[in-house]
C-alpha cells in the first residue's frame, strides 16, 4: 500500500533512514519498533485462544519486568497471513490504551510486528487464582480477613473506574485479578470488556456467551439481552465468597453449545445458585417473568426434589459455615469479615440486577467504613510469602511459538487450561 519513499516516523517523532525500511520489504507494513530490540524474553507464562503470554525484561534503557501478550492471526494454509484482527483484540487494545487507573492493569505499549500484536503490560507477580490455590496447599488455611478486605476494596475501586467510564469488564474471575508483589490489585484481561454507552447493536448480539460460567450472573443465565454493570458486581460477589471459602461458590457444569450454535440454558449452573440462594421469585425480582429462559427456570422447579427449595434463602447458613470452617473469628489470627461482610456479600449476590449493589455503593458499605483503615497493600501485616508466578522455559521464542487452537469458552477455569496446555507441549 505504501510507495517507495514512504517515511517511517519513529515514536519520538524522528524518521528512520529510508534504506532500512526499504531493504526489509518495499511497499509493505513494517513495524517501527521491534519487540526483540526492546525486550528480552525470559519465559512463558500462559496461553489462551488469543495467543500466549510471556515474561520479559526490558533492554536498552527500558527498565523493569513485563508481561507480553501476543495475539496471533489465524493460520491460513501453510504461512501466516494478515486476516484482519479479531474484534476482541481491537477492543482490548483500544480500551487499554485509553484507561489509566491504579487498580487496572497498566499497558506499557503495543507493538504490531510480523503480523502479530504484542501488548506489553507491567508484570504482576501474582493473581487471585494462584493466591487462593496457595491457601489450599498443603492443607486449607484461610486468607486473613484484612487481606480479603483490602483485595475487595481495591477490586471495587478499579471496577468503579471502569463502570464510570462506561466499560463493562464481563469476565471477572480470580485468574483475571492480578496482584503485584507490593500487594496492589490490578484488574486484568480486558479481552471481553466493552463500552456500554448506547451501543449500536444490543450488547447481546455481539458475543452470545460472556463471563466464565461460575461467575455468570443469573440474568445472563436466564438469557437477558440488555445487561448492565450489575453482571460485574455478581462476579465480584462470587470472588468475595471464593476468597473466604477457597472454593468457587457456584461451581456448575457448563452445558455446551449444540451444533446449531444456539446457546443452551445453563441448567446445572442455575441449580448451583438456587441451592444456596433459593429460587428467584417474581415478587422480589419483577423483571424475572420477562426473562427469555423463564419457562426453563419453572421446569427446573418441577423436575427437582423439593428439598432444594424449601430451605429458602440460606446464604447466611453458607456464610456461617464458611467462617467456621475457615477459622474466621474475632479472636483468631485470621480475624473475621463479620456481619458486615455477610451483608455486603448478600447485596452483591442479589438476584434482581436493578437492586444489586453498585461498585460505588459497595465502596461505602459498613464492611469498609467500619473496622479501621484499609491498606493499598493487601499483603500488609502478613508475614506469609506467596510463591512467584510460574514461568517456564520450554518456549522462549516469542516469534515462533505455536498457537493452540482451542476456543476460549471451552473450559470454565483457565488454570485447568494451562495444565493441559503444558502437558501437550
Amino acid at each position, binding site marked *: *500500500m*505504501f*510507495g517507495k*519513499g*514512504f*517515511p517511517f*516516523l519513529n515514536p519520538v517523532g524522528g524518521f528512520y533512514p529510508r534504506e532500512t525500511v526499504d531493504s526489509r520489504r518495499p*511497499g*509493505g*507494513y513494517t*513495524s*517501527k519498533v521491534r519487540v526483540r530490540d526492546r525486550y528480552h524474553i525470559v519465559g512463558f507464562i500462559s496461553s489462551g485462544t488469543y495467543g500466549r503470554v510471556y515474561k520479559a525484561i526490558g533492554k536498552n534503557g527500558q527498565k523493569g519486568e513485563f508481561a507480553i501478550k501476543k495475539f496471533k*492471526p489465524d493460520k491460513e494454509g501453510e504461512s501466516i*497471513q*494478515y*486476516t*484482519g*484482527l479479531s*474484534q476482541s483484540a*481491537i*477492543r482490548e*487494545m*483500544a*480500551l*487499554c*490504551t*485509553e*484507561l*489509566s487507573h491504579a487498580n487496572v492493569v497498566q499497558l506499557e505499549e*503495543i507493538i*504490531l510486528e510480523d*503480523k502479530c500484536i504484542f501488548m506489553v503490560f507491567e508484570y504482576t507477580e501474582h493473581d487471585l487464582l494462584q493466591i487462593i490455590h496457595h491457601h489450599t496447599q498443603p492443607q486449607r488455611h484461610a486468607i486473613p480477613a484484612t487481606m480479603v478486605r483490602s483485595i475487595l476494596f481495591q477490586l471495587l475501586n478499579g471496577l468503579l473506574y471502569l463502570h*464510570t*467510564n*462506561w*466499560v463493562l469488564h464481563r469476565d471477572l474471575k480470580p485468574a483475571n485479578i492480578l496482584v503485584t508483589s507490593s500487594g496492589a490489585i490490578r484488574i486484568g484481561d480486558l479481552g471481553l470488556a*466493552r*463500552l456500554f*454507552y*448506547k*451501543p*449500536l*447493536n444490543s450488547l447481546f448480539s*455481539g458475543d452470545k456467551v460472556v463471563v466464565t460460567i461460575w461467575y455468570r450472573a443469573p440474568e445472563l443465565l436466564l438469557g437477558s439481552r440488555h445487561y448492565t454493570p450489575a453482571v460485574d458486581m455478581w462476579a465480584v460477589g462470587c470472588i468475595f465468597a471464593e476468597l473466604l471459602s477457597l472454593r468457587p461458590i457456584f461451581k456448575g457444569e457448563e452445558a455446551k453449545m449444540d451444533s446449531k450454535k444456539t446457546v443452551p440454558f445453563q441448567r446445572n449452573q442455575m441449580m448451583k445458585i438456587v441451592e444456596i440462594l433459593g429460587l428467584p421469585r417474581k415478587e422480589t425480582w419483577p423483571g424475572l417473568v420477562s426473562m427469555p429462559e423463564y419457562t426453563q427456570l419453572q421446569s427446573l422447579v418441577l423436575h427437582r426434589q423439593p428439598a432444594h427449595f424449601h430451605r429458602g434463602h440460606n446464604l447466611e447458613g453458607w456464610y456461617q459455615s464458611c467462617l467456621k470452617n475457615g477459622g474466621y473469628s474475632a479472636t483468631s489470627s485470621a480475624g473475621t469479615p463479620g456481619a458486615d461482610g455477610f451483608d455486603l456479600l448478600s447485596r452483591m449476590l442479589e438476584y434482581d440486577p436493578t437492586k444489586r449493589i453498585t461498585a460505588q455503593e459497595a465502596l461505602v458499605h459498613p464492611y469498609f467504613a467500619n473496622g479501621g483503615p484499609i491498606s493499598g497493600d493487601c499483603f500488609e501485616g502478613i508475614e506469609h510469602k506467596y510463591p512467584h508466578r510460574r514461568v517456564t522455559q520450554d518456549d522462549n521464542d516469542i516469534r515462533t511459538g505455536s498457537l493452540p487452537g482451542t476456543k476460549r469458552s471451552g473450559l470454565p477455569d483457565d488454570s485447568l487450561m494451562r495444565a493441559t496446555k503444558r502437558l501437550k507441549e
Partner: protein
Amino acid sequence: MAANYWASTQRRHWLFSREKLADVRERLREQDKVTHSQFPLPDQRLLNIYFNQQLIKLGKRMSTRQQAIATAQVYLKRFYTKNEIRQTNPYLVLTTAFYLACKMEECPQHIRFVVGEARGLYPEFITPDVAKLGECEFALISEMSSQLIVHHPYRTLSELQSELPLSSDEVALAWSVINDHYLTDLPLLHPPHIIAIMAIIVAVVFKPSNPGTFGNSAQSALAGVIRDGAGMGMLAALSDKPGSGSPRIQKLVQWLAESEVDIKAVIECTQELLSLYEVWEQYSEKHCKELIGRMVKSKKLDK
C-alpha cells in the same frame, strides 16, 4: 476516557491548533515536493466529500450506522496527519478505515465481505487478497498508536435535546450539520461538545423556511440561506449583543452564556462550516476520481 473526554487520548493526542495542523501538513509536503507538484489534488475538503461518499457507498449494503462512518472519517484524518496521501492508495486506506471503524463501533463486518464490496466499487484499486487490507489495518492502528476510541458530537446533541429543548426538525438539521463537519478539519481542531453546540446554533439560527428532509447533508438546505446572507447577523449577535433576535434565539443565547461554552470557538466552527458549503459548489466527483486514479496508477500504489 469513554465517558470522560477530558482524559481521553482524543483530547491529549488528536487535538491540534490550526497552526500545528498546518505545520504537520507542510512537513509532509516538504518531504516530497516533486510528487506534490506532479500530482495535484483537489482542496482537502473536496477530497473529504469524495471519501465520505465512498464510505457511504461501502456502508450501504452492510446497513452500517452513521457513527461507524464518522469514526472511519476521523481515522482517515488522523492517518493523513502522519502520512502523505500521495504515498498511499486512498481506496485501500478508506476501506480499511471503514473495516476497523465497524469493529470499534460494534457493528463488525467480515473482512472478506468488506473486500468484496470494495472490489465491486473499485475493481482497479482493490485486489481480492484480504491480506492487503489486513496489512493496512496494522499500519492504521500503528499510526494512530492504538488510540481508536473516538468521541463524537452526536452524544452531546442527544443529551442537549431535552435540556434546551429542541424540536425534532432542529435535531435532524443539527445531526446533518454534525455529519457535514467531518468533511472539514474541525474534528481535529475542536472538542465534540463545541461541534454539537455549533450544530445546534446553526440548526436554530439558520433554520430554513421549509424544514423537512435534509438527507445526509445539510448543505442543500443551508446553502441558499447562507448565500442570501440571512442569519449572518444573528451569528454576530451571539458574540456582541445578547438580547437581539427572536425569543427562541434569545433563549439559546442566554443558555450559552450560562453554560460557559467557548463562544469564540463555536463561532469559528460555524464559519468553517459555512465556508465548506461555499467550497462544496465546486465539487466534482469525476474530477476527484480522475486525479486520485492517475496518482495511484502512475505511482503503482495499488500494487
